[in-house]
């Protein structure tokens, strides 16, 4: 991990390792993930299901079932405090307060038997000791901020009285209620239709300008990240395989996995491909910690070293790091798709 010269780092994560005990053995879900998030930055975390993107984020705030989960090592510095070493009681004060969360499915993450107003004011009363009337006033402001019409009248409605897109707006309002320094959004638009997704992305862009918090946006959708993130981190099988400024990642992807992932997506303009490029095979099962590159079995560029040693993330150019022997040793130029 490069030492970061910037002093405006909000969260600094180093070598987080998380494993799960299952009936089949120990699953190596996260294998030493490090990254920084700077003030006001939006970091996109991209990967397929099972790549460890969600588990990494949940490890930071210990929102994992433990056991079977275990955070084996690593640190996560947030406002001078190592979250990994912090006990659950102290973490309770940070979760939903200085660190806000938005989850994928707003139907299952909102309580169906409590009013939206109650759920919105819960965090305020817990973290800020606001009085009931002050909290309600703030709740109305928050609902207006996320674009819910007639906010005042809707406080006493239940989640089922809102549509999917509106429920996700409520989730965002809850996440923002205590002015978080950092917002972790885990697949927040995956369950929504494209037109509603466009509304939410538009809202997030405006909110970022107004409130200026740092955001970690976890998704499998490379399209969503392209139009939102400042930097992108690509994960595969519990490792960060590539990290770059958004322009660089899409224009000159270095890791064969990133490259292949971008090529499998059908184009919305121009010539239509005769045949989609596909990545053959499947992601590895994670019962053994790989001592070789995890992508090697599916990689079109793999050579001997890839099956012998696991590459570490290394600097390739300003704001661009990649973990790939092919890039480091052969370094042949490759065109972006």
């Amino acid at each position, binding site marked *: 991990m490069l030492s970061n010269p910037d002093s405006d780092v909000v969260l600094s994560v180093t070598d987080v390792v998380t494993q799960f005990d299952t009936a089949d053995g120990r699953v190596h879900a996260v294998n030493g993930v490090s990254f920084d998030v700077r003030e006001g930055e939006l970091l996109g975390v991209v990967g397929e299901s099972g790549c460890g993107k969600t588990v990494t984020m949940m490890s930071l705030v210990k929102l994992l079932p433990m056991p079977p989960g275990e955070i084996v090592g690593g640190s996560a510095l947030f406002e001078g405090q190592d979250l990994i070493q912090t006990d659950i009681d102290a973490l309770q004060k940070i979760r939903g307060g200085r660190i806000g969360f938005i989850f994928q499915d707003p139907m299952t993450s909102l309580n169906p038997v409590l009013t939206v107003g109650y759920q919105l004011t819960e965090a305020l009363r817990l973290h800020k000791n606001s009085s009931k009337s002050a909290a309600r006033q703030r709740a109305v402001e928050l609902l207006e901020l996320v674009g819910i019409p007639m906010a005042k009248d809707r406080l006493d409605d239940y989640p089922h009285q809102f549509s999917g897109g509106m429920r996700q707006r409520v989730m965002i309002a809850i996440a923002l209620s205590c002015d978080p320094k950092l917002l972790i959004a885990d697949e927040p638009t995956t369950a929504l*239709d494209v037109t509603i*997704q*466009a*509304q939410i992305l538009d809202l997030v862009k405006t909110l970022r300008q107004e409130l200026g918090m740092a955001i970690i946006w976890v998704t499998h959708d*490379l399209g*969503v990240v392209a*139009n939102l993130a400042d930097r992108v981190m690509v994960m595969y099988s519990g490792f960060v395989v590539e990290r770059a400024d958004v322009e660089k990642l*899409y224009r000159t992807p270095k890791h064969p996995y990133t490259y292949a992932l971008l090529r499998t997506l059908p*184009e919305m303009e121009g010539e239509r491909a005769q045949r989609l490029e*596909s990545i053959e095979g499947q992601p590895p099962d994670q019962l053994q910690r790989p001592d070789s590159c995890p992508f090697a079995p599916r990689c079109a560029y793999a050579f001997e070293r890839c099956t012998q040693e696991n590459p570490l993330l290394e600097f390739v150019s300003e704001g661009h790091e990649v973990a790939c022997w092919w890039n480091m040793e052969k370094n042949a130029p490759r065109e972006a798709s």
Partner: protein
Amino acid sequence: MSDTHLSEPLLQVKNVKQHFPVTAGLLRRQVGMVKAVDGVDFDLFPRENLGLVGESGCGKTTLGRTILHLYRPTEGQILFKNADLTLLKPSALRALRPKMQMIFQDPQDSLNPRMTVGSIIAEPLDEHSIIKDKERSNRIEELLDAVGLNPRYTNRYPHEFSGGQRQRIGIARALGLNPEFIICDEPIAALDVSIQAQVVNLLEDLQEKLGLTYLFISHDLGMIRHISKRVAVMYLGKIVELGPAHELYSRSQHPYTKALLSAVPLHDPGREAKRERIILSGDVPSPANPPTGCPFRTRCPVAETRCATSMPEPKNLGLGHWVACHLME
């Protein structure tokens, strides 16, 4: 909405409506009607791949199921190889069933976890044909091979396979009776990006090799552009635009199609920043209480007063491009 094809259509859907009653109270009195599919017309030609796109709740799955007669349509005609399915006796319909198959969205839910892969694939064979013993097991192995799975896997259970492999099992099952027409209902929505391309390529190869006709239902506009030659856009139970894929994606006419296309995030930050976006306000209205006139008018950025009074008729723009919008006149 027909097309300028030389061959006879394989499937003709004529003014099909599927209304579900809403009941309430102890006596289950009908209090309303959900108009899931509300007057759909289109033709499908042999070896064609028609894409059907729309947001969740627009009626695309219901339309697919109605075409296969899993629901009896409230109104309209469905002609498959010139036989009107709505008029057929159950026995005659059953004889036609092998020719029409379906691939479902979620391979997790559509495969019985207690059945082996071999028996899952054999079920339609046992139901509709008389092949036995050696011939039957050869056919199963042949089908597994055709979808790129190891033929030795016949005795394994669905949970032993990954999502992409399970979808291949679902495809093998659909191919068993040599169908001519397959409805693919969101076949890749539940799969990871790197696996989606594998399954789409397989479906394309099979179409080429076996001369299949697809109705490809999806909300993924990028994938539909890749796989379908013609595309129908559905909104609130109606087809609002239908045309050749290249026309529809480069010169869409209906305000809904335009908004839908502009909402798809591009995987290119440069083009994304320059793009003009149309962000629709609000949500899809409930099909139990649809707006008067044009169904899209409540969210339409260019709606006029006449849009509230009458439903626009589909208008032919040439080259098989149809659009239902008052502003086209």
